[in-house]
């Protein structure tokens, strides 16, 4: 009898499993969907690089057995930009959390989207800084209780799809981690897209966020997604704000074509330098 082996173990660093994510956390499901989409996409796995920042989701690069890069806090996109420019053949995937990409890495995020650098960003949004103990993050909805907002959050949150679409991303989608098949397909489309593509994955954080919103287990959050998730493809990203306990509008919001940074680079350089160019 063969030893028991999960079919995705070929793409996982098995010696590091079980991973550190809590029981009921949604990041593992997002990784499963990514691996499944990657296998279906038919990309050359030697030419795929996964870049992560810091945080719970920042651990993803350490668990995926591809060329992976665990970078400093918030700088995942900055490192990935360098990676892409140095080796344009690579398919660069950034797998990080909302605290890493949107808070400390916010400027890298909007400028990578503005330049339309050919990369795929998978942003796992759990509405707080989970790893450090559940503090208010840039995506925490108004009124949500966290360790640093015991009377409810007083700040307006970022609407990540709107931010990405306004900055110039060519593909913007949002799914909860409950909608695994749709999420998988969306990640596949994002991988196939030329330009800056963003997939936001809403994931439960039972230990630090859900517990304080009376969703004590991951299962409670999933039931909430099941009840309040509304699929609206092509919705205006302006209207997809997430309220505390409100509807979560999901779907593919933006899917357009635009020349990428490397297109402009190649065209401009060959025009300026003629046959002397690179």
């Amino acid at each position, binding site marked *: 009898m063969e030893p*028991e082996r*999960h*079919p*995705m*173990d070929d793409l*996982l660093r098995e010696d590091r*499993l*079980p*991973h550190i*994510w*809590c*029981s*009921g*956390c*949604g*990041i*593992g*499901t997002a*990784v*499963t*969907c990514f691996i*499944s989409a990657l296998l279906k996409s038919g990309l050359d796995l030697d030419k795929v690089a996964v870049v992560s920042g810091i945080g719970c989701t920042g651990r993803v690069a350490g668990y995926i057995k591809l060329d992976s890069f665990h970078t400093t806090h918030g700088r995942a996109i900055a490192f990935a930009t360098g990676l892409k420019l140095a080796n344009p053949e690579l398919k660069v995937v950034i797998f990080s959390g909302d605290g890493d990409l949107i808070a400390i890495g916010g400027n890298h995020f909007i400028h990578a989207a503005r330049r339309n650098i050919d990369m795929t960003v998978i942003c796992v949004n759990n509405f707080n800084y989970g790893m450090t103990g559940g503090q208010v993050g840039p995506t925490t909805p108004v009124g949500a209780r966290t360790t640093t907002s015991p009377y409810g959050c007083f700040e307006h949150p970022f609407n990540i799809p709107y931010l990405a679409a306004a900055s110039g991303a060519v593909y913007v989608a949002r799914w909860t981690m*409950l909608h*695994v*098949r749709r999420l*998988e397909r969306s990640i596949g489309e994002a991988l196939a897209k030329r330009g800056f593509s963003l997939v936001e994955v809403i994931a439960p954080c039972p230990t630090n966020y859900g517990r304080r919103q009376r969703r004590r*287990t*991951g*299962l409670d959050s*999933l*039931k909430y997604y099941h009840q309040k998730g509304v699929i609206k493809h092509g919705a205006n990203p302006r209207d997809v704000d997430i309220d505390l306990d409100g509807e979560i509008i999901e779907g593919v919001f933006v899917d357009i074509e635009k020349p990428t940074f490397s297109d402009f680079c190649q065209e401009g350089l060959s025009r300026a330098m003629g046959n002397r160019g690179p």
Partner: protein
Amino acid sequence: MRYWRKPLDIEGLKIPRGNIQILKERCKGCGFCVEFCPQHVLEVSEEFNSKGYHPPYVKDGDGCVSCGLCEMLCPEFAIYRLEEEREVQVL
């Protein structure tokens, strides 16, 4: 269900069936697979793994149609299925 005749293409038809495999030591007992299985094939077991979680067990293996939802939804890479096929039976 009773058919008035044998379907002509019955030789070519197979019903997909999943043989569910659970890696008990990886499970953290979140219960996603048990809750969302469309065929209610899985159930939380009484037994413990070495970390003290209750892994699921296959309650009704014949009900599985190999949809793969448990495999996709599991955050721990702890459940997968071996695809099998079943003959169509005419009563």
